[in-house]
Structures are given as C-alpha cells and as structure tokens.
C-alpha cells in the first residue's frame, strides 16, 4: 500500500506539469470558442439575410443545428471512448466517455429546447409527435439513464464497464435520430442542409456557428474530462487512505 502511495507521489510532479499544459489548452479552447460564439451572433443578425416566411425566429436555426450536431458527435465520442475503455481498461477513456456523455446530453437537451421554441412559431405548438422530435427525445431519455447508472455506488471498474457498454448500445439510437427525417418522409421537421435549401450567406453563417460551437464543445469536453480524472484520483486516494487506517 505504501509503495502505491509513493508511486502516486512520484507521479504527482509529472501529472502536475501535464495538467498545467492541458489546463492552458483548455482555457484557450474555451476562450476562443466563447469569442467565436459571440462573433457568430453578429454574423447571425447582421450578415445572414432574414428568412422571408419565418422572419427573426429562423435565426434560431443557427444555434439549433450546431447544438444538435455537436450533441450527436458527443454521443459518438462517448461510444468510441466506451469501446476503447473496454479494450484498454485505461481510466482516461472512462473520463472522456463521462465527459462526452454529459456534454452530449446538455447539447441535445438545448437542441430540443430551441427546437420547441421554433415549433411554437412554425407549427403553432411547443411539441408534436414527429419522428425526428420523438427519436431525439427518446435518445435523451436513454443517455439520461446511462448517466443515472454512473451515479450508482459501484466500484470504479464496474461503473466504468457498465457505462462503456451502455454508451455503445445507446449509440444504436443515434443514426435513427439523424436519419429519421429521411426514413419517415411524412416528418414535418425540415431537412434543409444537403438539399440546397440554404442561401450561400446563410450557409456561411451556419458553418461559422458550427465551427465556433465546435471549439467551445472541445473545451467543455476537455474540462469535464480533467474534472472526471481528478475525481478518479480523489476516489482512489480515499480508498487507499481508508485501507491504510484499517
């Protein structure tokens, strides 16, 4: 046990240096992402032309789509991190998976929220049982369940294994959400991107918003990942401390 504590102490300086480097990168990403998102507001309201039918409400689209897409990317990352954790059993992959899960659920929830505001103006209802909306809500329920599993008092290894398996299984729902508007043609959810439904100025602003949120997303995932790693270290030290006292 003492050897293990000594090993932790010996690695502390090395970890601290690596942590400081990551912390600086994290700060840069969050600041750059935040600035890009602020600038994207200017682009949305000044550069992008106003849509003729929906007017100002259409501007929500520039926020809604990046939230939804980065949410889906987060779930892909959580699934990949889960697969790598099961293959390598490295705590870092579990931390990355946890961070991606939380961030994905946050972004997907915000995408549902902004979509609901859009629906109120476009369809005169806050919610309708449309395939895209329903599959997205079901996806949020699934990932909320996976997060609930992470809150149970399992041992670290068991919790990480369960979370990894469930993240992989839950990802089966993600393609269904993405392709639902194409699978069920009767959907009223618009599928504009890729169908040439956007003016070039609108597309440019959309890409800028996607990139801005992407940088911020990366910073957020990295921040949560570092926090999860710190939690893991604390948990381990608590266990070691408890064993030392016995």
């Amino acid at each position, binding site marked *: 046990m003492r050897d293990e504590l000594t090993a932790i102490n010996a690695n502390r300086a090395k970890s601290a240096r690596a942590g400081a480097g990551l912390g600086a990168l994290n700060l840069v990403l969050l600041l750059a992402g935040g600035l890009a998102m602020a600038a994207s507001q200017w682009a949305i309201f000044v550069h992008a032309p106003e849509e003729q039918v929906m007017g100002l409400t259409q501007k929500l689209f520039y926020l809604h789509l990046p939230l939804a897409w980065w949410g889906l990317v987060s779930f892909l990352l959580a699934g990949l991190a889960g697969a790598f954790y099961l293959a390598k059993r490295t705590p870092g992959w579990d931390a990355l998976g946890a961070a991606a899960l939380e961030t994905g659920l946050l972004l997907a929830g915000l995408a549902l929220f902004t979509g609901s505001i859009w629906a109120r103006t476009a369809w005169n209802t806050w919610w309708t049982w449309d395939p895209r909306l329903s599959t997205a809500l079901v996806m949020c329920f*699934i990932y909320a*369940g996976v997060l609930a599993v992470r809150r*149970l008092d399992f041992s670290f290894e068991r919790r990480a*294994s*369960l979370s990894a*398996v469930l993240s992989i*299984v839950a990802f089966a729902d993600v393609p269904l959400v993405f392709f639902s508007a194409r699978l069920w043609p009767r959907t009223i959810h618009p599928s504009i991107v890729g169908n040439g439904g956007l003016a070039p100025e609108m597309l440019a602003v959309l890409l800028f918003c996607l990139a801005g949120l992407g940088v911020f997303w990366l910073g957020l995932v990295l921040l949560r990942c570092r926090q999860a790693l710190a939690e893991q270290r604390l948990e381990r030290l608590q266990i070691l401390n408890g064993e030392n006292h016995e």
Partner: protein
Amino acid sequence: MLKGALILCRKDLALLAGRGGGLVQALLLGLLLIFIFSLTRGPGEAVSPQAAAAIFWISSLFCQVLLFTALYALEESDGQRQALLLAPLPGQSVWLGKALAGLTLLGLAQLVFLPASVIFLGQGMSGSIPGGLALILLTDLGLAALGSMLGALAQGGANQAGRNGPAARESLFSILAFPLLLPLLLAGIRTGAALFAPAAGLEDYGDWVRLILACDAVFSGAGLLLFGFIYDSRE
C-alpha cells in the same frame, strides 16, 4: 456455447416453473394492464387496432422486465453467480441461455395476453394469423436479446440498502430498457395492428418489418459482444 446455453435455459425454466412466482407475477401484471386499459372504453365503444396492439406490447414489456429480473435473481443467493461464472462456459452462453428462457416464458405469457386483448379490448383476429404470430416472435427476439443483457444490471446488491440496493438496480433496468426498446415496440405495434385488422397497419409494412429485423440484429450483436463486460462477480 449453444449446448451450455440450452442446459442453462432448461435449468432456469425448471426452476421458475417449479417456484411459479416469477411467471405468475409477470402474467398477472400483464393481464391487469390489459384489463385496466379496457376500462377506458365505454360500453359498445371500440378500441382502435393500433391502441389494442400498443396495450398488448406494453403488457409484454412489463412482463419482460419482471421475467428477466426473476431469471437473473435465480443466481443471487449463496454465491451461485460466482459458481456460474466459474463454470466452463463462455459468458455468451449465460446471455443466450437467459435470453432463450426469457423468450420461451414471454411467448407463453403472450399466448394469454393475445386472447385477453381480443376479449377485453374488443378486437377481431381478422389479419393473417401465421404472419402476425411470426412478427410477434421476431419482435420478441429483440426484447429477449436486450432484456437478457440489461437483466444482468439488476444482479448483485442483494444485501445492500438505499440507492444502490436491488430496487434501485431493477428500476434502472426499466429506465434503460424502455427507451432503447421504443423503436422495436413501435414497429411491433404497427405490425401488430395488422393482426387485429388487416387495413390498420398495412401502410409502410415492409419498412416496419425491416426495423424489427434491424433491432433484432443490433441487440443480438450487442448482447453477444458486450454481455461479458456486464455480467461479472463484482458488486
């Protein structure tokens, strides 16, 4: 793997049939659900075929949760789980054995639920009966494959209390299984409606059957590949 799975399936079926509790509880819950939903229609009013199919599958889903919880609870005393893990069987045999046992019991329960739906919900069996039953079986395959994998979540913690006790784990099984099974259930409902009334669910019939097959494949693949990571000796 198949031989081990069949032995395990036979053992589970014999134990559950001998004790009776697990299957009877699941049957009663399903029947109660069908009966309670039947009270929503007034005298002489008809329940639409799609609503009847939805009630049938909701009953089946709750039945599935109870069945797989009971199947995994069989090894939760006297360290039998550790004994099962030490047995010279691949981990997938446990998953397959439990899935086969669950599938058999679910099929038996549905043999009661189906006539109950016809009687209590005022449905006719005017659709193609062999085709309808085959689609129910196909949907059951997905239910059993995922149920057998997630049922292992409810394992352990028999002596623990509070938020991590068995009750918390069993509720987690439902919380995870229900949304994951939704696409499969939706397809089951749409195709099931065609069993009660041929005109009700014929639209996009092929697409729904393909969705059932896709869910079966995904859940079976996930069970085969990932079950070993869920079912272990750790608490």
